[in-house]
């Protein structure tokens, strides 16, 4: 279906449903309950980040997952895309269409230049080259290029910007031909409230398209070629195939995904800062991909979701919330539990992240997807056993 085999198609449908129903799925607890206040993630700003970083990591996975080339400077494309989008807002109008188009194009061009140079080396030399380019972009954007990037403060739209396409009644926040990104519809059902926001759905549609495209690339002859390069590049070149154009194509596509993500970030929230390009931001992309499962289709989306969840939800849990949770316990037990959990929440969420990440790399080299498969495997074996039993029983 849609040019996909049945397994991929099922996966695609699952992703579609998850993306479209996220405002409901991510709010499992009643809004006012203690669990809801702490763990619900179904508010627009975070859902947008889930899907946008999902797009970013899907793109990264096309490069790293297929070719094995580890780019440590991928955040540069995200940053460049955001800058391009905000400039479109400043110069033309708040319409997101030109902004997103330009962000993809600019990031693509940027990727052509960096890719052309970096792909002349492989292995860690490639990683260091991409890292060096990204760090240079960051440093310059933070200081010397301030007229272009507004430096530390971040590029944003001011009332006196040209905005030449802006009519008298045009919306004053990003919009899709009049449909404002930040307008939303709230559905209140007995204690639950679900927020459906235009901006989120625009991003979700791009995620679905991006995911579809990535499946097609994975299953295409080019995808096969890229995998072949991963397993043995030397052999590929001995067979007379020029691998360079394939690699560059993967790199540029991956950069354009990042540019799209950057443009969407700006479209959801029209401000962008240089720290989007810092090397730790690139590191975070790598972490997301590994955590979810490199080279798998769904892994990157999962990884991005988990990191953003930790960053936004766990970092907000503080001691007084912990005390609320354990208030029903005897004082000493409450104290002990709070003391044990304290280092891992709130300001310690990085520690949780680091430990989780190490555990995944050590025990699940294939990421959480592999973990899921293992569990699924156990379950399936049991089921087949049952089935075997079932088959036996009537015979007796």
């Amino acid at each position, binding site marked *: 279906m849609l040019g996909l085999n049945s397994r991929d198609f099922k996966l695609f449908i699952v992703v579609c449903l998850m993306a479209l129903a996220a405002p409901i799925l991510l709010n499992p607890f009643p809004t006012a309950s203690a669990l809801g206040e702490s763990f619900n993630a179904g508010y627009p700003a975070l859902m947008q980040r889930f899907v946008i970083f999902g797009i970013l990591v899907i793109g990264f996975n096309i490069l790293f997952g297929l070719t094995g080339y580890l780019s440590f400077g991928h955040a540069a494309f995200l940053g460049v895309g955001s800058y391009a989008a905000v400039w479109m807002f400043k110069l033309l109008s708040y319409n997101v269409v030109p902004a997103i188009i330009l962000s993809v194009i600019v990031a693509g061009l940027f990727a052509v230049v960096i890719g052309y*140079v970096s792909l002349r080396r492989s292995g860690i*030399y490639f990683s260091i080259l991409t890292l*060096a380019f990204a760090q240079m972009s960051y440093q310059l954007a933070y200081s010397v290029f301030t007229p272009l990037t507004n430096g530390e403060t971040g590029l944003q739209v001011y009332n006196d910007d040209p905005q030449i396409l802006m009519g008298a009644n045009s919306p004053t926040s990003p919009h899709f031909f009049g449909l404002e990104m930040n307008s939303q519809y709230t559905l209140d059902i007995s204690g639950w409230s679900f927020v459906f926001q235009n901006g989120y759905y625009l991003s979700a549609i791009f995620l679905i398209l991006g995911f579809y495209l990535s499946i097609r690339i994975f299953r295409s002859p080019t995808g096969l070629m890229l995998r072949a390069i991963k397993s043995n590049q030397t052999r590929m070149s001995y067979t007379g195939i020029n691998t360079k154009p394939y690699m560059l194509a993967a790199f540029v596509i991956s950069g354009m995904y990042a540019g799209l993500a950057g443009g969407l970030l700006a479209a959801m929230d029209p401000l962008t800062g240089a720290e989007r390009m810092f090397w730790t931001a690139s590191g975070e992309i790598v972490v997301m991909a590994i955590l979810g499962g490199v080279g798998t289709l769904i892994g990157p989306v999962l990884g991005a979701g988990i990191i953003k969840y930790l960053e936004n939800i766990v970092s907000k849990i503080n001691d007084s919330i912990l005390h609320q949770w354990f208030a029903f316990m005897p004082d000493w037990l409450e104290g002990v539990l709070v003391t044990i959990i304290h280092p891992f929440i709130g300001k310690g969420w990085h520690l949780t992240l680091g*430990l989780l990440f190490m555990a995944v790399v050590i025990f699940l080299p294939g990421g959480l997807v592999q973990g899921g498969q293992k569990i699924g495997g156990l379950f399936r074996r049991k089921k087949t056993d049952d089935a075997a039993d079932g088959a036996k029983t009537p015979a007796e």
Partner: protein
Amino acid sequence: MDAFILQILNGLDKGSAYALIALGLTLIFGTLGVVNFAHGALFMIGAFCAVTLQKIFGISFQTIDDTQTDFLGNPLKVDTPYIEAWFGPEMGMAIQDWSVPLAILLVIPVMFFLGWVMERGLIKHFYSRPHADQILVTFGLAIVVGELIKAFYGANPIQTPAPDMFLGTVDVGAWLGMDSGAVAYPKWRMVYFAFSLVTIGAVFAFLQFTTFGMVVRAGMADRETVGLLGIDIDKRFTFMFGLAAAVAGMAGVMYTPILSPHYNIGMDFLVLSFVVVVVGGMGSLPGAVLAGFMLGILQSFASMNEVKAVIPGIDQIIIYLVAIIILLTRPRGLMGRKGVMEE
């Protein structure tokens, strides 16, 4: 001229820090074939050994002084370090004053032990895994170490001064026959430079002139054959990991008076030291040292006002720019071997 000499000195000083870290990193890579992203964290643990020793020397008992009041108006609690009570105020102060150099004695066994534990406990399981996995697991470890340090010591930089006798400057200009005072350089930075030369020399001598070092070098060149000769090369490589950790730790301790340690210096140095190693060529010890000093000196010159006036912001990107140029002209860095880290 004096400005020129000063920047050369600055470059050598920066370079010695880069070279020391890169040396350990490339040593680990050359022996064990592991890309250790936690090496910056080892440097940081070293630095915090100095902080810890300073804290230990500062452990105090409290006495209440009724004649004075604290900021709330309560009687003032006076802290007296035990060390001053035991050895007398003067000796106690002197020990505290020397806590950074004394930390070297602490850091060698501590780092050696940590390196050994890290290799046996974690890295060992990653020999057969792809380099990307090694990078990732050590990167995760670096995050965890940084966060643990933050949990114990906070996020602020902690002042760890050098002993009083190393405060002030040396009149380098006078040695070179220039006007006195034209080139004055901080004493501790001279000490750091000398220390790094000695350490680098010692590592090279150890590898070059001892039987143990010879076996290790043989193992670096061809691990299998050495193994077939009935030599337990793994044990020696574990030792080298400990040694590399100890070198990083010592570099960290000695650097604390120059740069007040905080929980993120490991990450700050990580990227830099990797660029240095790659520019020098993965697995090449002389390459790492050469690249360290070269990048240090280039960075110092790029920071000069005369240079910045021509190319604004060059001081911020010079390292990366040089790395790109070198890698494009010399595919394996300055002194890298063929076939290393290219799969």
